[in-house]
């Protein structure tokens, strides 16, 4: 099916990955994960209540106990899914949110680890989402482990990474091996493109399938209800999306 925007493919993929969740939280500036969670909520409406918390948002926030409550909820096992980005992500799913070079005097400094060093351990479905798919981001080994992809036996770890989604494709993470496997390739890309742009080794099936696209009903939900809901919190992102749709229709 043509006529689906990349951002729509990403949002739909996130909604697929969120199947079965009861509660999902997204970071402050995360329109694509938020939209994915909104689509999941819309799809599940008659079966299950999906709760979505957008950190730092007054409107999309059902917490009343300060900024510790998200972490408490994760510790209680109430938070099913969360998203992490990362200045660097490596083949063991280690995530670096701190910087490049020798810590502490990093040559490039990113904001910091935020809650990753806790949530990566406690949230069952952590989805790594980083649009930039390059050897700069997807590295063989991160310079600083904000949060490790796997932990040795004996370490309390109900949570961890399940997938890595980029602008080029979707990887699943196998914590037993451990390592990534290419799950699907987004329209317009090839397995070879992906290999070229990826700095870590991963498993790749002989013919990785194309990433599933939303059907007509899903697309209607996406461009209607989800886009409307998203506009309240991410007006700039929603306006961009609307512009792209208009350009496409023209």
């Amino acid at each position, binding site marked *: 099916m043509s006529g689906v925007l990349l951002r729509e493919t990403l949002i739909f993929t996130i909604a697929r990955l969120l199947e079965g969740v009861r509660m999902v939280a997204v970071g*402050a*500036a995360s329109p694509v994960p938020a939209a994915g969670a909104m689509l999941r909520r819309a799809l599940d409406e008659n079966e299950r209540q999906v709760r979505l918390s957008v950190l*730092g948002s*007054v409107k999309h926030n059902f*917490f*009343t*106990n*300060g*900024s*510790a409550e998200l*972490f408490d909820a994760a*510790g209680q096992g109430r938070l099913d899914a969360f998203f992490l980005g990362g200045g660097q992500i490596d083949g063991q799913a280690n995530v670096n*949110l*701190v*910087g490049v070079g020798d*810590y*502490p*005097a*990093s*040559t490039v*400094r*990113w*904001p*910091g*680890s*935020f*809650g*990753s*060093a*806790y*949530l*990566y*351990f*406690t949230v069952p479905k952590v989805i790594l989402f980083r649009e930039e798919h390059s050897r700069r981001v997807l590295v063989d080994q991160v310079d*600083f*482990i*904000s*949060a*490790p992809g796997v*932990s*040795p036996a*004996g*370490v*309390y770890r109900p949570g961890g990474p399940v997938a890595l989604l980029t602008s080029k494709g979707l990887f699943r993470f196998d914590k037993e091996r451990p390592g990534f496997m290419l799950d699907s390739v987004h329209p317009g890309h090839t397995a070879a493109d992906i290999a070229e742009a990826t700095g870590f080794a991963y498993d790749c099936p002989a013919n990785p399938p194309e990433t599933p696209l939303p059907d007509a009903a899903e697309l209607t939900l996406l461009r209607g209800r989800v886009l409307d809901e998203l506009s309240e919190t991410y007006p700039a992102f929603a306006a961009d999306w609307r512009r792209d749709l208009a350009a496409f229709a023209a």
Partner: protein
Amino acid sequence: MQADLRAMAAGIRPGMRIALPVDYAGVSMAMTRPMIAHGAGSLDLVCVPTGGLQVDQLIGAGLVRSVETSAVSLGEAGGAPRFNQAVKDGSIGLRDSTCPAIHAGLMAAQKGSPFVPLRGLLGTDVLRHRDDWRVIDNPFAAEGDPIVLIPAIRPDVAIFHAAMADRFGNVWIGRRRELAAMAYASARTLITVERIVDHDLLADEMTAAGTLPALYVTAIAAAPRGAWPYGLWGEYTTDTNELIRYAKAARTEAGFAGYMAQEAAA
């Protein structure tokens, strides 16, 4: 007004440990320039649990010895330029943390406990660089179960901005309960507010529910729009354009100085 803020800032002594809230919870930006004017340096900042504009400006002004934080950034306006430069220069001490570890340290102080345990963290470089944290085997587990202990964080001063206070020193913080946690944990708490009301906030159960009692409050000063350019939860939104203007200006030391001089004049 300005006199009140200066008087509050005058209570800060060199070498103190100062707790500051996350950008959306009520940053007392109104206190930033009085603190810089007062000049007490070698401050150890504790960001609860992340820092932004205020932290960047205090670093730019040379008042900061170290930062304990799980992140410093200007949010949509990008990285925190003076923080990032100071990290590159090695001119400030870094205690990289993770959000719930900051909350855990404050909770230990609130409870009068020397530490609290925290799951996660094992195998991270965050933990590896924190020689003030400890790992023990959970004494309740049958087999080895390593767990990190976070020591109490007891700031000398907490500083934040809230919607209102009453004449009796009680402060309404609403659902931003990390502000209460900061006050409980700290020896002194300095608060700026949008407005001071005449009625007792504790006299009505509806307002009492969101009120930090005067017991924990050292001083209060009125500072309307005192979080600007940050927003104040439930009151006004962040002025992102101003954050962007700062982010551009503060890329260089001179640009930072120019911005601060200009703001002072305004």
